């Protein structure tokens, strides 16, 4: 099993090696990187390329580790026992009917190997990663209600993404492989765009890319535009059929590019940008 990138996802050499190492050694792969560099997409694409079903677990600030394993639905059981009729009275006797299986349970007991995405693990409580140590290391956990040990039939391929909002505990990190997705350089970016817009006009693309990297290099931006924002912006440019001239004025003066709202998502950033453009055009 080897991952070599897909038709709609451009993976750099080191990223491919990271994924392949995680596959070979069956370790979870922790992926970090700027927002919009394709962390979540990586899991989807790898699962797709290798033909594995993908189970997703999106973490919120209120998510508990236990929810990924199983939950005991005591409330339904109580209701069933009080409203007992013939078929539910049979149901009530077996606690297994009230154990709701979580994502990890499903991944561990699946008949074929699966890919598992734990998305944005840094959003959860600080204890969350610590509660999953044994589960991710040994790929097994104990269900107290039914007194059974759930053990992975096939070790799932685990992807974990983080946006760096919290530091993850060392014990957790030691059990993972770690890859930091660097912001793509201009060449890789051209590949990425070619994958998404095979028919885009070359001149429009090169002008748009220049504008994009210029904006990224502006000092003081609160949120720099990322790959996904570039893709959105190009999508708009193509959809609106913006002519090339609109992006570059004849005497090479700086102007505000059309639909800049797709790149800059922050009011202060837009104001800053407009101010800079105004200052530049006055200086010439």
């Amino acid at each position, binding site marked *: 099993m080897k991952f070599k990138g897909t038709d709609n996802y451009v993976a750099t050499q080191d990223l491919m*090696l990271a994924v392949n190492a995680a596959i070979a050694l069956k370790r979870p792969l922790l992926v970090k990187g700027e927002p919009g560099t394709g962390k979540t997409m990586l899991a989807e694409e790898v699962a797709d390329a290798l033909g594995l079903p993908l189970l997703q677990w999106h973490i919120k600030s209120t998510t508990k580790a236990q929810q990924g394993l199983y939950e005991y639905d*005591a409330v339904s059981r*109580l209701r069933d026992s009080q409203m007992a009729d013939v078929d539910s009275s049979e149901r009530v006797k077996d606690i297994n009917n009230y154990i709701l299986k979580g994502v990890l349970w499903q991944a561990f007991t699946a008949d074929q190997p699966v890919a598992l995405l734990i998305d944005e693990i840094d959003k959860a409580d600080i204890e969350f990663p610590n509660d999953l140590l044994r589960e991710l290391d040994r790929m097994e956990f104990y269900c107290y209600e039914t007194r059974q040990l759930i053990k992975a039939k096939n070790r799932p391929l685990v992807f974990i993404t983080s946006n760096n909002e919290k530091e993850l505990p060392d014990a957790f990190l030691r059990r993972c492989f770690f890859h930091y997705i660097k912001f793509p350089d201009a060449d890789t970016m051209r590949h990425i765009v070619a994958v998404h817009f095979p028919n885009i006009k070359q001149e429009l693309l090169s002008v748009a890319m220049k504008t994009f990297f210029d904006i990224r290099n502006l000092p003081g931006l609160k949120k720099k535009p990322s790959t996904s924002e570039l893709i959105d912006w190009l999508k708009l440019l193509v959809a609106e059929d913006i002519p090339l001239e609109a992006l570059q004025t004849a005497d090479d003066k700086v102007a505000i590019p059309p639909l800049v709202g797709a790149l800059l998502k922050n009011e202060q950033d837009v104001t800053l940008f407009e101010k800079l453009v105004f200052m530049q055009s006055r200086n010439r």
Partner: protein
Amino acid sequence: MLIDFFYTLRAAKLPVSVKEYLTLLEALQAQVVGPGSDACSLDDFYVLSRLILVKDEKHYDKFDRAFGAYFKGVEMLTDFTQEVPLDWLEKILQKELTPEQKAAIEKMGWDELMETLRQRLEEQKERHEGGNKWIGTGGTSPFGNGGYNPQGIRIGGKGGNRSAVKVWDQRSYRDYDDTQELGTRNIKVALRRLRRFAREGSAEELDLDGTIHKTAANAGFLDILMRPERHNNVKVLLLMDVGGTMDDHIARVEELFSAAKAEFKHLEFYYFHNCVYDFMWRNNKRRYAEKFETWDIIRKYNKDYKLIFIGDATMSPYEIVQPGGSVEYNNEEAGAEWLQRLIHAFPKFAWINPEPQGVWEYRQSIAIIQQIVSHRMYPLTLKGLEEAMRMLSK
């Protein structure tokens, strides 16, 4: 196998554990890289070892340096934490040496060489070209690059005859090193440490979900569950130095400030110049019109507030210890008095200093302030901030 490599990384202060080292060997055995796979260059080994051994991008830069050092066959005896400024090494001077000169270059033994390098790094504070003692470019000193000492140590730059720059030599993760001074990127992460949601105290609220669950598990008998109310109880009093020597740091301090504003529920800030005296101000433009008595500030906020000074503490010692020493007006009491009063009123305090930590010991006023604030002074780096926050939230 690779034991030296492992210890080289440990020596560079990378937190690598035995378990990770064994995993790396396991990966090599499984032929993830190497002759058995299609990835068999040194670059691939670099990516693989980084993937397995390094768990945070802030360590990437350290790893790059250690990796480079190891694979150049240099045993790492130097202290990696001291950075040699790159502009020393710009190759603007390529002195042509005659064979006689080359022969005349003194040859030192290895140990002596490293020892001398360490000493030079400590002594030298400026760029240097030519000559035969200091670290720099071009000359005949054994340190630096582009020079002609046959036993020299190369620092940065590219070797004369090598064309390809290695991945780890590009040092592209330098910005992520947490001992570097702060950019916008990580500042919020550090501040979040202080923004602790504390569940404490007696104010309790009904935990409805918990109650339903407990009751159901209790076979229908009511089992009420209470939980402490959740509120952000971090209060911060921020005192910032403006003007004078602080001008160099204004941009970074502003970044810190804008990040801080979003993080705390209760954030009060005041400005002072160089040292705190009997009044401060809130609006820099109207600093003479709107003054706030320091006594009032001490009375207004209670002990729960955490006091953070931001200032370079660089001034004449008189401004701290002498009544009337202020550069702005005739202060009746010395700055030290006021500082002590403030830290007495707010037992949780820290001083964040944007000056690089390396220069602290050369400034008399910093030493005095350090003494007053009982060495709770931290540099404006991610690591410094984290230490400060950890100390404040104890």
